[in-house]
């Protein structure tokens, strides 16, 4: 696959790439469609409900019906919005969500980009989405969406740091920022064991990064009505939602890669199951875990969130780096 990707640029090559990209996009969209379905089912079961059941067998076509509804809705732009920003914001929020998949290796053989700064690239590009959110919130000419956008900015600044610091522990152990190398370095034991503290910090920061409960402040329905996308409807709204769900998958995959050995089976005896299946299982678990939180937790307050980030997560992340250095120094692992 790598050879093919790195091969000379001919016309057929470009068309082939475009085709592959298109297919991947559709696979991802299909995954998102059913992630929403499974989310609604899971939430329903947790909340003493049934969840979608009428559209298609077992409600399997419910999300498709919802998406179709959004697509055929009138493309409405409110008066007095900053039109260019308003139109471009969903795309800016949505594009990075797909770009990050470029650096996520999905198995030993499915590696799109062998990027040596893969992790850094992921975090950097994922941060771009916040700009889309802020653009959307700012341009909407709505005070609620402005507050939502400002919260998004504040959250991005405070949670990106513990996120990166926590991930540094893994980088130190693996000695590389290349996600492929990070996975291969876990052949003997997964990073979760020495990095349990780092993992907890990383996951909490990731939840905030993804705007999931209990950190769903930017779109806090009961406070900000819908947050930054109050004024969005139709397919632009769908873009924002899509970005959010794609990030869930990306983050689930990243966690599986960083801490849970990616496509490596838990025991060599289980290696007859293809790596991509292992990765999918791990990634989907961490993709769906936030839905469980969503059914359990209320929302924290913005000041509590900031306090938690700077006074709890940051020191813990730094402590984790110190511990990791000691582990490295005495050579317990790696």
């Amino acid at each position, binding site marked *: 696959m790598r050879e093919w990707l790195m091969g000379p640029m001919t016309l057929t090559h470009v068309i082939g790439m475009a085709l592959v990209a298109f297919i991947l996009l559709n696979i991802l969209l299909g995954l998102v469609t059913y992630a929403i379905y499974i989310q609604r089912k899971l*939430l329903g079961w*947790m*909340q*003493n*409900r049934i969840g979608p059941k009428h559209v298609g067998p077992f409600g399997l076509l419910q999300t498709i019906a919802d998406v179709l509804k959004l697509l055929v809705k009138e493309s409405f732009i409110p008066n007095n919005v900053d039109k260019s920003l308003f139109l471009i914001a969903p795309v800016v929020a949505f594009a990075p969500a797909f770009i990050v998949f470029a650096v996520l290796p999905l198995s030993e053989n499915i590696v799109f980009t062998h990027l040596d700064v893969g992790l850094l690239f992921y975090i950097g590009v994922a941060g771009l989405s916040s700009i889309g959110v802020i653009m959307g919130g700012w341009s909407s000419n709505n*005070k*609620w969406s402005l*507050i939502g956008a400002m919260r998004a900015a504040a959250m991005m600044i405070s949670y990106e740091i513990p996120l990166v610091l926590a991930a540094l522990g893994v980088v130190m152990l693996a000695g590389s920022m290349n996600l492929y190398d990070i996975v291969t370095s876990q052949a003997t034991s997964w990073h979760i064991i020495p990095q349990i503290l780092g993992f907890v910090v990383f996951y909490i920061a990731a939840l905030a990064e993804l705007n999931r*409960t*209990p950190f*769903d*402040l930017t779109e*806090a*329905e*009961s*406070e*900000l*009505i819908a947050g930054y996308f109050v004024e969005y409807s139709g397919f632009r709204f769908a873009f924002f939602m899509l970005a959010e769900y794609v990030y869930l998958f990306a983050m689930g995959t990243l966690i599986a890669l960083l801490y849970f050995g990616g496509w490596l089976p838990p025991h060599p005896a289980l290696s007859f199951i293809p790596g991509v299946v292992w990765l999918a299982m791990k990634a989907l678990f961490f993709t769906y875990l936030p839905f469980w939180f*969503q*059914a*359990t*937790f*209320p*929302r*924290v*307050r*913005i*000041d*509590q969130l900031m306090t938690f980030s700077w006074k709890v997560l940051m020191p813990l992340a730094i402590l984790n780096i110190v511990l990791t250095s000691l582990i490295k120094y005495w050579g317990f692992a790696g």
Partner: protein
Amino acid sequence: MLRTEEMVLNVGPQHPSTHGVFRVIVTIDGETIVGVKPVIGYLHRGTEKLAEDLTYTQIIPYTDRMDYLSAMIGNYALVHAVETLMQLEIPERAEYLRIIAMELNRIASHLVWFGTYLLDLGAITPFLYAFREREKILQLFAELSGARLTYSYMRIGGVKWDIPDVGWIERAKTFIREFEQALKDFHDLVSGNEIVQARLKGVAAYDQETAIAYGLTGVNLRATGVRYDVRKAKPYSIYDRFHFDIPVRTDGDLWAKYELRMAEMEQSRRIVEQALESFPGDGAIIAKLPKLIRPPAGEVYTSVESPRGELGVYILSDGKPQPYRIHFRRPSFVNLQILPKLLLGENIANMVAIIGSIDIVLGEVDA
């Protein structure tokens, strides 16, 4: 230093967390509230004025629509005032039915508060669990009175309907048993949650003097340590026959109010349990009265403990079938007056938590 400006933010009347058509115009500096202007009246129907042209029995449906979450208690407040004015004897079976209906309704009302309050705080699941329990109560009420929300169940001198069959008492007992477990589940799911406690503890606390000065009643008063509950202070109906406690907290913050409402559901459950145990086997459900009720000329003020506080009814009668003047002391309206004081200096997230903690019903605020 950046130049910053205050922003006027219009909250409601269509905001999801103002629990109806309540509107607050807040001035915010960042997310901190520096100015508050509540606007009420979107649901004003002039109940008191309308009532002057209605016979006493005709007013009952209007009381349903004031505090629509506890219509039974609203009904009772009115008929209780008329009965006091007429010095009526109420049949025992009717009193029991009233107590059971009112206390079940108090549980139902607190359940709506519990669910929507947690929704305000961002937790979606408790809402559905609370409404599952409430549904059972509404089912019982539908069997009893034919309605799920606006019951118009009480009549002057008694109640309109007897229990539909003997099984109703058994079904109510089953609910009471199940509800004990449900309350435990609520505590397991919510009360111990760190985030809930962090959101509620120490927020928007006020002291006893403030509470009394603002005329707060109900949970909003008892959260500051005043043991005032009309059911105990001025017993009405047959509340003196049942054992129950008046839970009190002293902190006056949101957490105290949360704990109190949860504790009150347990106390109401106890009352219903006792009432169902000693429910009289037979007897009249309404006193013998003429078709057209003419209370003697005079005035009367009586009050009952609604889920929101002291619900008072003042009637000035000139001996006609219609009241000369009727006034409702609506606890939601009175309790709401402290809101601007509580909101100043808080942020948007606390704002919804504070509005929710006062537990207003807009039908009652605007009447």
